[in-house]
C-alpha cells in the first residue's frame, strides 16, 4: 500500500486554517451549571492538576525530611499524615480522575458523539470528586488521616486512630468512589451506544478501548472498596466487629484484619490498572500519529487491554504475601501476576514495532510516550520480581516497593498524562504548547525521575522499610536518600516547566488550527476548541484512522475539482 502521508508535503494540500482562537468568556455560573463534556473535562483537568501540585509539595516535604539521617524537620505524626495525604491525593484525586478529565474531553470527540450519554450525571461525577477532595483536605483543620492510603485496621480502628482523620478518609473515598463509578457507567454507555456510523469495535480508537475497559474495572471493583470502608466506618463508630480482632481475654473471636486487606486490594490492585490502562491508551494514540505509521497490531493491543483488566481482577493476593495465608493461595496469585506481564509485554513490543520503519517526528507528546515505554518497563520488571513471592518476602514494604510504585505510577501513568497533555492541549485550548519548553521539561523530568527513584531500589535492598520518618546515620542509607531528595527537586523543576508552559501558552501560544498534528482520529475533525455541538455533520468511519481517510478524500477531491475543496464534500 502506498504511503499517504509524508513529513514533507509534495503538493500543497487544502485544509482549514485558523487564524485566531474563538474566545468566549464563560461566567462562573456557566462553569458550575454546565454539562458540556468538554467543559467538565476542563474542570477535571484543572482540579486534578491542582491536586497533583499539592501532592507533589507533600512529596517534597517527605523527601526533605528523609534527605538527612535523624532529621527533625517533620515530627513522626506529620510525616505519617503527609505520606497518607500524598498517596491518597496522587491516587484518588490525581491519577484516576485526571484520565476521566482527558476522556471526558476527547472520548465523545474521538467516537464522533456530541456529548456523553448522561451529561448531568457527568457533572455530578465531577462535583462529587471536588467534594471528596474538600472532605479529605478539610481534615487539615483538625487531624489528617495518618494510617497510609490503605487506611487499614487495626491501625485505622478507633482504638488506634481516634482522631477524625480516618473518618475524613472514609467519607472522602466514598464521594470519590461515587464519582468514579458514575463516571465509569457514563463512559460505558457512551462508548457502547454513541459511536459514529461505521465505527465498529475494530475501529474504536485505542484510547476508547482503554477507557471502556478501565470503566468496567471501576464499576466492578470500586464497590468492594466502598463496602470495606463502610464496614470500617461502622466498626469505628457503631459497634460492629468486621475487622477488629478478638479482644484478648474476652474469649470471643471476632473480626479479621485480613478481611479488610482482601476487600481493599480487590479494589486497589485493579486500581493500578485503572491508573495505567488509560495512559497506555494515550501512548497507543500518540505513537502512530508521530511515527506516521499505523499502530502495530491494533487487535493485539486492544485484546491485551482486555486481558490485563481480566487478569488484573485476579491478582490482588500478591499484596498479601506476608499475611498468614497458605502457600497454595500464594502460588495462584504468583502465577496470575506473572501472566499479566505477557499482555503488558505485548503492548510494549507492539509500540516499539509501531515506531520501527516509521518517520518519527520528535514532538514532546511523542517523547513523553517513549519516556513511558522506557521507564515503565523498569516498573514492569520489578513487578515480575515482586510477584515471585519468596522474593517479595524480602522486598515488600521496603523502598524497593516505593520505587516500584513510582516507576509504574509516575513512569507509566504520569508520563502518559504528560503525553496526553501535550497532544490534546491544542485541541482543548486552540493554542500550541511551546515545544522548546516542553522538551526541556521532558528531559528534566526524565532525569529527575530516575535520579529520585532508581536509587530507591538499592535503599530497599539494603534494608530500609517504607513509611519510616527517620533513619540512623549508622544505617548507611544517607547517600542514597540524599541523591533521591536531590532528584525530587530536579523532577519538580521539570514539572514546573510544563506548568509554566501551559499557563503561558493559554495566552500566547501559537494558534493551533483544527489539526496541528495530522491526527488519525475524529477529534481533529473539529475546530480547536470544538464548538458546543462538536460536529455539524458526523462523518462515516471507514477505518481506525478516519482522519487519514478524510484527508485522502479531500486530496482526491482537490485534484478533481482543482484546489478549493470544502469540508462538506466529505461528510456523508
Amino acid at each position, binding site marked *: 500500500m502506498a504511503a499517504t502521508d509524508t513529513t514533507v508535503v509534495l503538493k500543497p494540500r487544502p485544509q482549514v486554517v485558523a487564524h485566531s482562537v474563538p474566545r468566549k468568556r464563560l461566567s462562573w455560573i456557566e462553569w458550575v451549571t454546565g454539562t458540556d463534556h468538554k467543559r467538565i473535562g476542563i474542570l477535571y483537568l484543572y482540579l486534578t492538576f491542582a491536586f497533583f501540585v499539592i501532592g507533589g509539595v507533600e512529596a517534597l516535604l517527605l523527601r526533605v525530611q528523609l534527605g538527612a539521617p535523624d532529621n527533625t524537620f517533620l515530627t513522626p505524626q506529620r510525616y505519617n499524615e503527609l505520606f497518607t495525604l500524598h498517596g491518597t491525593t496522587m491516587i484518588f484525586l490525581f491519577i484516576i480522575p485526571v484520565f476521566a478529565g482527558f476522556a471526558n474531553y476527547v472520548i465523545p470527540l474521538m467516537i464522533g458523539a456530541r456529548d456523553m450519554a448522561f451529561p448531568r450525571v457527568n457533572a455530578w461525577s465531577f462535583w462529587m470528586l471536588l467534594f471528596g477532595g474538600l472532605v479529605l483536605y478539610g481534615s487539615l483543620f483538625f487531624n489528617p488521616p495518618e494510617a497510609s492510603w490503605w487506611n487499614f485496621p487495626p491501625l485505622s480502628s478507633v482504638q488506634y486512630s481516634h482522631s477524625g482523620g480516618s473518618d475524613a478518609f472514609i467519607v472522602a473515598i466514598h464521594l470519590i468512589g461515587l464519582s468514579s463509578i458514575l463516571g465509569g457507567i457514563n463512559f460505558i454507555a457512551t462508548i457502547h451506544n454513541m459511536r459514529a456510523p461505521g465505527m465498529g469495535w475494530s475501529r474504536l480508537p485505542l484510547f476508547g478501548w482503554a477507557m471502556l475497559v478501565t470503566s468496567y474495572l471501576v464499576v466492578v471493583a470500586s464497590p468492594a472498596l466502598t463496602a470495606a470502608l463502610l464496614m470500617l466506618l461502622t466498626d469505628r463508630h457503631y459497634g460492629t466487629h468486621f475487622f477488629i480482632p478478638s479482644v484478648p481475654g474476652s474469649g470471643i473471636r471476632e473480626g479479621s484484619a485480613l478481611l479488610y486487606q482482601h476487600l481493599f486490594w480487590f479494589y486497589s490492585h485493579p486500581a493500578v490498572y485503572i491508573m495505567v490502562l488509560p495512559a497506555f491508551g494515550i501512548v497507543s494514540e500518540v505513537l502512530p500519529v508521530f511515527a506516521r505509521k499505523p499502530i502495530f497490531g491494533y487487535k493485539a493491543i486492544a485484546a491485551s487491554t482486555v486481558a490485563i483488566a481480566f487478569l488484573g481482577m485476579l491478582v490482588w493476593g500478591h499484596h498479601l504475601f506476608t499475611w498468614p495465608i497458605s502457600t497454595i493461595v500464594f502460588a495462584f496469585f504468583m502465577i496470575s501476576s506473572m501472566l499479566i506481564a505477557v499482555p503488558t509485554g505485548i503492548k*510494549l513490543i507492539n509500540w516499539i514495532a509501531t515506531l520501527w520503519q516509521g518517520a518519527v517526528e*520528535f514532538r514532546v507528546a511523542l517523547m513523553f510516550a517513549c519516556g513511558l515505554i522506557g521507564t515503565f518497563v523498569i516498573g514492569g520488571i520489578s513487578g515480575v520480581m515482586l510477584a515471585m513471592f519468596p522474593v517479595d518476602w524480602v522486598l515488600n514494604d521496603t523502598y524497593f516497593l516505593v520505587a516500584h510504585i513510582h516507576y509504574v505510577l509516575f513512569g507509566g501513568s504520569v508520563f502518559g498524562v504528560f503525553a496526553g497533555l501535550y497532544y490534546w492541549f491544542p485541541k482543548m485550548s486552540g493554542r500550541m504548547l511551546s515545544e522548546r519548553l516542553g522538551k526541556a521539561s521532558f528531559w528534566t523530568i526524565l532525569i529527575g525521575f530516575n535520579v529520585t527513584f532508581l536509587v530507591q531500589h538499592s535503599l530497599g535492598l539494603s534494608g530500609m522499610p517504607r513509611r519510616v520518618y527517620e533513619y540512623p546515620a549508622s544505617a548507611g542509607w544517607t547517600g542514597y536518600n540524599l541523591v533521591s531528595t536531590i532528584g525530587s527537586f530536579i523532577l519538580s523543576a521539570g514539572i514546573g516547566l510544563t506548568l509554566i508552559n501551559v499557563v503561558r501558552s493559554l495566552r500566547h501560544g501559537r494558534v493551533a488550527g483544527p489539526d496541528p498534528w495530522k491526527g488519525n482520529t475524529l477529534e481533529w475533525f473539529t475546530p480547536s476548541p470544538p464548538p458546543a455541538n462538536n460536529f455539524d455533520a458526523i462523518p462515516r468511519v471507514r477505518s481506525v484512522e478516519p482522519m487519514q481517510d478524510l484527508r485522502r478524500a479531500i486530496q482526491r477531491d482537490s485534484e478533481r475539482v482543482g484546489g478549493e475543496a470544502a469540508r462538506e464534500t466529505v461528510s456523508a
Partner: protein
Amino acid sequence: MPSALRRPDRTQRPSRCARPRLLRSALAARLAAPVALGVLVACAVLVPVASARALLPQPGASPNQSHTDSLYTVALIMGFVVFLAVEIGLIVALARFRARKDQVAAQIRGNTRLETAWTAGAVVLVTVLTVLVFIQLSVIKNPARSGPAGLALAGDAEFAALNQPAPPGGNALRIHVNGQQFVWRYDYPNGASSFETMYVPVNTTVLLDLEASDVAHQWWIPKLGGAIDAIPGYTNHTWFKISKPGVYYGQCALLCGQGHANMVAHVCAVPVDQYQTWVDTQKAAITQANKDVSDERALQTRQGGSAAAPPTAHELQLQLAEPVGPSYIPPGCNVTTAP
C-alpha cells in the same frame, strides 16, 4: 541521489557505508541525545552499583535468605536482559527512523507471526521464573535441619502449623514473637522473655511464631530471610538458622503508628553454651521479678488493698521486663547502636 532509489521498501535502500561523511555526522547528531541519555542512565545505575551489592539483597546469614538471594539474582539477570532489549529497541527505533527529508513511513499494520513469537517468548520467560520459584520454594519455606553442634532440644516443638512442616530431625528452638506498639517481645521455651534483642544459639533452627497484641506489625531481619506479618488474631510462622555468631539488625516493616520507625529488632546469635547461660539467667531474673511483684501485691493486700485490684505502676514496671532484664549479656551482643 535519485529520489527513485528512496523507496519505502527498506531492503532496497543503499547501504549505509555507501554514504560518506555527511551521513556519519548526521548519524552522530541523531544519536547524540539517546547516547547522552544512555550515559546518564548508565551513571545513575553504575554509581550505586559500584558501591557493593547495590542491586542485591542483604547477603544471607541464614539458608532461607541465601536461597531467596539466588532466586532474586536469577530474576534480576533475566529482568536486565529484558530491560536492555526494550531500551535498545526503543532507542534504535527512535534514532534510525527519525523523520528526515523524503523519509516515508512503511504502512505496516501488524505481523501475526512476529506477534505470536514475542507473546510466546514472554510466556516462556515467566514460566521459567515460576518454575524456579517452585523449585526453590521448599528450601526457603521449610525449616532446615539443625546443625549437629546446635542446641539439642529434641521433641520440643509441636507442629500445628499447616504452613510450616517440622524441620527434619525435629530439633528446633521455638520462640514466640509478639509485636506491640512499638517494641518486639520474645518468649523462650523455658519461660524467659526479652524485648527488642532476641538471643539465639548458632547452628540451631529457630522457629518463630508471630502474633501481635495491638495493630499489625511486620517482622523483618534482612539477613535472616523474608519479612512476615504479625497480625492480631492470627499466628504466622517463619524460621531461620544462623551459622555465624553476631548481631543481625532489622526493624518493623509494616506501618504501625507514630513509633513505627523506631520499632527495631535485633537478633544476637551466640554459641550454644552462652545461649544456655543467657536463657537460664534471664529466666531466674524474671522469676525473681515476678516474685517481687507478688510479694508487693501480698503486702498491699495485707495493708487492706484488694487482690483483684489492677496492677500498680510499680508492679507493671517490675513485670515489663526491660528494666529487669537482661541480667547477663553474652559477649558480642551489646547492642547500643543501630547497624
